[in-house]
């Protein structure tokens, strides 16, 4: 008090005379944040390349029509795949490391059903194209190819020897897994797009391949694999031996199969499970006989579980030696086998142990796979390991023929068939436009090094702004789990096993909207900017700004010091730091 300087500050605290904006702190920076879009593991894994993170976000907000429209960019049948896809996406879901994987399948099913219940349709609003394309085979691959080609304006004619379209989706998959009205609903939407269906027409018989070749500018062949494999055991010619696909076809046509009281099914794949579960529905006592262990079965684990719940019995590490009985099947003599070299990567080789035993049965169903029937296909086709040999985009040699579905070298699932149909459609489109069909032609639609094509993630900015797409798949360590609470996965409603085994109604109870939105909110939306605002809120320099074009956020590089807080606080790994010399 007693030593007062004459020059007292005029303000009580140091206040600048102008805005601190004059201090462009961006010059302090040696690294900068970049908004990126990385690949969610679910989409990477999805053969159809669906934007799971995107449709989850839309579903979480009750925007089901938009969610549906997003899915059908990549998959014309969400109500079907929502039921029958084996959802490898869920096995890769980052949420599994947090608590439990998101029930992607249930949400997709709801969205697909939403589309059907609300009569949502697709407009082929593209420019009309003059070229004509023939699709041979109206299964999931052929229908998918025709969907895209029609969408892009081509004249599409579909040939199929069956009375109704759908292929194995209609004649293979039992209706308790895929109700016929769902299948019909999804296909009728394709009909409305102006597809020309020639049902009951077998190409190569009713119309020659040459004629098809002459009349059409391009051909997509996806007739499926129907050549039944058989067992080389004594007594295999006896009555009471059924082939899996023919058996399922009979049942799917609504006919009463000729089935005894004790059914043995040989095989470990999904059709073996289908045959067994169908047989249970005809009140038969059913045993599945498989030469390896349960863990080595190619069938889907959930299907195995449901089959067991419905009363199907299993006999592992056994192979048939002889079909017993006089003229008709009365039993099986089997041999126990040991597994050689079985480990996590190898399913192992069954080797005979010499120990034999006998079981009673009056019906034997062989579900041991099908091959491509080469007689049903044009002669110029070449094969590799009994599958049609194709080029990068499903093209057969240098011809106008493309192939997809079970005749080519791809896993035999509906979703893989859809993927091959989509790939074939892109191939035909490029072929007709005179564009190259090389190895890198599909790269713009690929997710990183994946073979799968995604239109939604590569061509759409809905619902997330997609900038600086990377080739990296997001893993859990790229996320900030602090921002996600822990909540259990939704419980899928399943009809009680006793009830299931008595009817062909859908075994899964459709989820309700609230369950679906709640489950969809569990999705991390890995690698995408959902506009959560964390970067905006946390930026100490207030330089993260809303993009004026509504495209997420931008960073004002005049002021960004490169502190990296936005990267740290981004829940989804949608920002990364980039070292720069500026």
């Amino acid at each position, binding site marked *: *008090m007693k030593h*007062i*300087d004459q*020059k*007292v*500050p005029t*303000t*009580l*605290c*140091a*206040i*600048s*005379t*102008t*805005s*601190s*904006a004059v201090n462009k702190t961006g010059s302090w920076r040696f690294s900068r944040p970049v908004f990126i879009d990385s690949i969610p593991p679910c989409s990477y894994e999805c053969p159809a390349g669906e934007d799971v993170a995107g449709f989850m976000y839309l579903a979480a907000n009750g925007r089901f029509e938009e969610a549906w429209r997003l899915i059908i960019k990549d998959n014309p049948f969400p109500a079907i795949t929502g039921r029958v896809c084996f959802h490898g996406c869920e096995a890769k879901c980052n949420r599994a490391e947090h608590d439990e994987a998101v029930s992607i399948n249930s949400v997709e099913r709801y969205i697909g059903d939403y589309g059907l219940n609300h009569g949502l349709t697709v407009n082929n609003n593209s420019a009309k194209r003059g070229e004509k394309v023939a699709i041979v085979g109206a299964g999931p691959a052929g229908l998918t190819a025709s969907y895209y080609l029609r969408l892009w304006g081509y004249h599409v004619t579909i040939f199929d020897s069956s009375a109704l379209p759908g292929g194995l989706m209609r004649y293979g998959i039992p209706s308790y897994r895929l109700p016929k009205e769902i299948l019909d609903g999804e296909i009728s939407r394709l009909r409305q797009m102006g597809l020309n269906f020639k049902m009951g027409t077998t190409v190569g018989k009713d119309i020659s391949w040459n004629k098809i070749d002459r009349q059409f500018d391009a051909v997509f062949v996806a007739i499926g694999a129907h050549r039944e494999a058989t067992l080389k055991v004594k007594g295999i010619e006896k009555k009471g031996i059924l082939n899996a696909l023919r058996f399922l076809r009979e049942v799917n046509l609504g006919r009463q199969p000729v089935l005894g009281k004790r059914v043995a099914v040989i095989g470990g794949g999904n059709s073996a499970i289908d045959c067994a579960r169908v047989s249970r529905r005809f009140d038969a006592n059913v045993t599945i006989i498989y030469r390896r262990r349960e863990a080595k079965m190619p069938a889907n684990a959930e299907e195995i579980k449901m089959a067991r719940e419905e009363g199907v019995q299993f006999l592992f590490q056994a192979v048939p030696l002889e079909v017993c009985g006089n003229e008709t099947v009365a039993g099986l003599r089997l041999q126990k086998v040991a597994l050689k070299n079985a480990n996590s990567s190898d399913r192992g080789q069954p080797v005979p142990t010499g120990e034999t035993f006998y079981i009673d049965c009056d019906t034997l169903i062989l579900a041991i796979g099908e091959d491509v029937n080469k007689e049903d296909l044009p002669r110029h086709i070449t094969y590799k390991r009994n599958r049609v040999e194709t080029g990068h985009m499903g093209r057969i040699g240098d011809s106008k023929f493309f192939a997809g579905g079970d005749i080519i070298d791809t896993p035999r699932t509906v979703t893989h068939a859809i993927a091959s149909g989509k790939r074939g459609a892109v191939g035909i489109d490029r072929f007709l436009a005179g564009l190259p069909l090389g190895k890198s032609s599909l790269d713009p639609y690929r997710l990183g090094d994946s073979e799968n094509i995604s239109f939604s993630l590569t061509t759409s900015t809905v619902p997330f702004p997609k900038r600086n797409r990377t080739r990296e798949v997001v893993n859990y360590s790229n996320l900030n789990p602090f921002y996600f609470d822990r909540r259990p996965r939704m419980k899928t409603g399943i009809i009680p096993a006793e009830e299931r085994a008595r009817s062909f109604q859908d075994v899964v109870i459709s989820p309700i909207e609230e369950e679906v939105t709640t489950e969809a909110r569990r999705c991390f939306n890995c690698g995408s900017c959902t506009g959560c605002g964390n970067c905006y809120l946390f930026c100490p320099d207030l330089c993260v700004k809303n993009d004026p074009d509504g495209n997420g956020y931008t960073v004002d590089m005049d002021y960004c010091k490169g502190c990296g807080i936005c990267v740290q606080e981004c829940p989804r790994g949608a920002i990364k730091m980039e070292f720069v010399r500026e």
Partner: protein
Amino acid sequence: MKKVLTGNQAVAYGAMLSDVKVVAAYPITPQTTIIETLADMQAEGIGDFDYIRVESEHSALSVCIGASMGGVRAFTATSGQGLFLMHEMLHYATGARVPVVLANVNRAPALPWNIWSDQTDSISQRDTGCIQLYCEGNQEVLDTTIMAFKIAETVRLPAMVILDAFWLSHTSEPVDIPEKEAVQKFLPSFDPGDMWLDPENPRTFGSVSMSDVYMEFRWLIQRDMERAKGVISETHTEFGNLFGRNYHQVEGYLTDDAEVVIVCSGTVASTGRVAVEVLRSEGKKAGMLKVKTLRPFPSDEVKNALRDKEKVAVIDRNFSPGAQGVWAQEIRSALYELADSERPLLYGYIAGLGGRDINIGTIRDIYERTSQSETPEDADIWVGVKYV
């Protein structure tokens, strides 16, 4: 309107009637019911303010500083460890010259853990530049909360309203709650003047100041702290005129002819009044001096009140390890300015730490001991302590 209120409820009413716009706080015993009451008031629409939940006391005061710099009245409350966590931001509030008001319920510092009354928490904030107002009863708590805003906003420094844990915070008394209109007349809306963060006129507040100006800014704090002494007195007077309740920075009771003046603060002052009456009834010339403000320290008033007295006994419910009770140190410093002939002998007593009761008997002992002593000892006397 009279209501039976705990000290903590009185604080909440004081803040609400002061028309605070932002309350940010973190709960801690024994402060919790202050912010619970405020949260209820906010939820029920009795108070028109935002209640901002924070994760620590450091953030609580930070939010209040931000709100105040945004140009609105802000309030927080805490106790003991919570106040220690606010320490950094108390200095900041002073430097930023924001008139935030906070209530501190005196709680003994850990370790060992103790939730009971002890002034060491607030005393430890002595040098932060925050005005400190110690209260004796629940009415004073409510009235002081309202006055604290006026004082703080006039001199643009933070202010702390201090009340004893449990003796006030959780003890009910009839309290006269003033009408909101009357309070608004006494305390109009906060006018930040030119010192606020105006988005239309962005400026930087408190940026780096080198040694050529730093000292000047600190001197301005001191200038205004000195000015606060007058402002507090004027505010007391104005409040007294409007509401009929008079408060003083220093208030004597039966001191005129006292041979021993016992200096008290907080609730000890109310015990002190009764103790002095008891001693007087026994023919002993005891007097009591209540000191309400620690910062700014009313040295002139203290000097005048104690000039020519024979002996002064200072009761400290706090202590500064390695030195003495802080009130005793402050009063001794003030008395130093008196001439030798006018200066009383000063006896320091440490009592009631961690909520140990200071009752009439305690004060009688202090009186007797002081009365019988010829010269003060070198160190404070720890009253009733079980030495090991």
